[in-house]
């Protein structure tokens, strides 16, 4: 029973982790929380769905439409995530960069991103309606069983194939991203910009270009996370990303703002704790993430893996 809950927690925790990575990447470069990330996450799920050639729009403007072609799931996932990434770059260009150029207060940027999130969600609803969309069963691995029993017949630990895929993809994303940031030239430049953008520019680094790249990566990872959730529970409407948006916030604050390992630890922790909530208390589950957050912050204000903030004089 416990093993079963841990497995469920691991799967949802992996999604929290890669969702929160999208926040973390942008926060570490710009010091802002991009609330539009939840909307990009939702868009990613819809993009993949649409690219698979499935019928979208039951009630919206685009009712009864579908693309004239259909891509296999994995190709659609990749292309959908790239489009989500480019959408992130687009938002950066039209909203965040002008605000930055004017030296806008971070609070303004935060509110702007919140407005964006609401606008995007409403546009999705206008276009394709609010119905639940489901990827066809077995879309990711045709012919694979729907679930695998890792326990025994007496004490089953059943993990659905969709959950296994989520965990595997999350691990892959984490490995590639960690390697990229810590071991490549561009990753090093990214870390330099996150520590001191002005000095980086004086060393010949085009900071705007790196910020664009960060928004792309964030959007890409968000798009993948959205699709994975869609694969697991279906696309439950344009508001899919909103609850993740808030929980993702708890994850990054819990793990430590701007810390990539922090986002992973925070995500897994919240996912597992939520999965351990007994069925009778399940309606309080969402409150739990914030309760953990509150308790941890009392003891460690910088989050689990964050660096203590030192006030500059």
């Amino acid at each position, binding site marked *: 029973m416990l093993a079963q809950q841990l497995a469920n927690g691991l799967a949802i925790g992996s999604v929290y982790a890669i969702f929160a990575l999208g926040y973390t990447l942008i926060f570490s470069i710009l010091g802002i929380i991009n609330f539009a990330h939840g909307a990009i996450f939702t868009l990613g799920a819809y993009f993949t769905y649409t690219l698979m050639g499935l019928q979208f729009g039951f009630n919206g403007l685009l009712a009864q439409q579908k693309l004239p072609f259909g891509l296999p799931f994995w190709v659609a996932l990749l292309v959908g995530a790239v489009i989500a990434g480019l959408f992130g770059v687009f938002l950066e260009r039209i909203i965040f960069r002008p605000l930055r150029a004017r030296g806008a207060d971070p609070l303004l940027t935060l509110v702007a991103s919140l407005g964006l999130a609401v606008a995007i969600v409403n546009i999705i609803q206008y276009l394709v309606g609010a119905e639940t969309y489901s990827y066809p069963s077995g879309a990711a691995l045709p012919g694979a069983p729907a679930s695998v029993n890792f326990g025994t017949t007496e004490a089953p630990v059943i993990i659905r194939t969709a959950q296994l895929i989520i965990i595997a993809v999350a691990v892959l994303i984490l490995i590639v991203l960690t390697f990229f940031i810590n071991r*490549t030239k*561009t990753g090093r430049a990214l870390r330099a910009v996150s520590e001191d953008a002005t*000095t980086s520019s004086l060393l010949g680094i085009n900071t705007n270009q790196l910020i664009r790249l960060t928004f792309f990566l964030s959007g890409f990872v968000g798009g993948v996370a959205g699709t994975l959730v869609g694969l697991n529970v279906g696309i439950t409407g344009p508001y899919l990303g909103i609850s993740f948006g808030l929980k993702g916030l708890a994850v990054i604050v819990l793990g430590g703002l701007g810390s990539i390992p922090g986002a992973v630890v925070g995500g897994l922790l919240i996912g597992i704790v939520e999965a351990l909530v007994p069925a009778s208390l399940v309606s309080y589950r969402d409150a739990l993430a914030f309760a953990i957050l509150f308790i941890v912050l009392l003891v460690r204000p910088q989050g689990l893996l964050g660096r203590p903030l030192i006030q500059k004089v």
Partner: protein
Amino acid sequence: MSDTNGLLRIGSLTRAFGGLVAVNNVSFAVNEGEIFGLIGPNGAGKTTLFNLVTGLTPPTSGELYFKGRNITGSRPHQIAKLGMGRTFQNIRLFPNLTALENVMVAQHIHTRSGVLSGVLGLPRDRREEREAREKAQGLLEMVNLADRAQVQARNFPYGDQRRLEIARALALQPKLLLLDEPAAGMNPNEKAGLSTFIREVKEKFSLTVLLIEHHVPTVMGLCDRIAVLNFGQLIALGNPAEVQSNPAVIEAYLGDES
């Protein structure tokens, strides 16, 4: 204005912050191969001038030429790419990057590896990365920090941070090196060593040096020519002896202290 003489030409440069004119109609040129000093009382506009030259602050009016090219309004990374390196009055290393990484960041512009090829670890990128690392290690050796290449910059004592910052600026392979108060916080011994070090580095990398310095003996002993700023205006320009005997300079300094 002619753009043929001088590695760096500053023409009628003005920068106002609201009502305060921090740099007021300043013109001079720094010739290739010289060590050029910029002095003046506190608040004279020296650091603002550095920020204008490196593109951090756009000028209100005036022109800047570097290597014969008009760089007025260019962005900092574009100017850095042309070959201008800089250190700061308050050291600005990347505190959580290692010493080696700090230096390697400055080599960014001299390598061609892209995002995707870097992640894939293609042979050309791996070779490029290895060469960059060796070069960076060499620069750390030159400033006697090679044995601590893997230590995060924030763990270095003050003097070592200063030298690390210079090594990082040199990794840009600049033609012109701007040093903002390199002797700040150093003891007399270290100050004496600094002049020798700057001369050595200048010869070895065939640099032109533009430096801000408060410590008068250091400036007089080190610089070929000196410009003096006071309240944003250029009040004297010449060799150390000329500047030292200039009545306007004497007044600016004595007036400041009384």
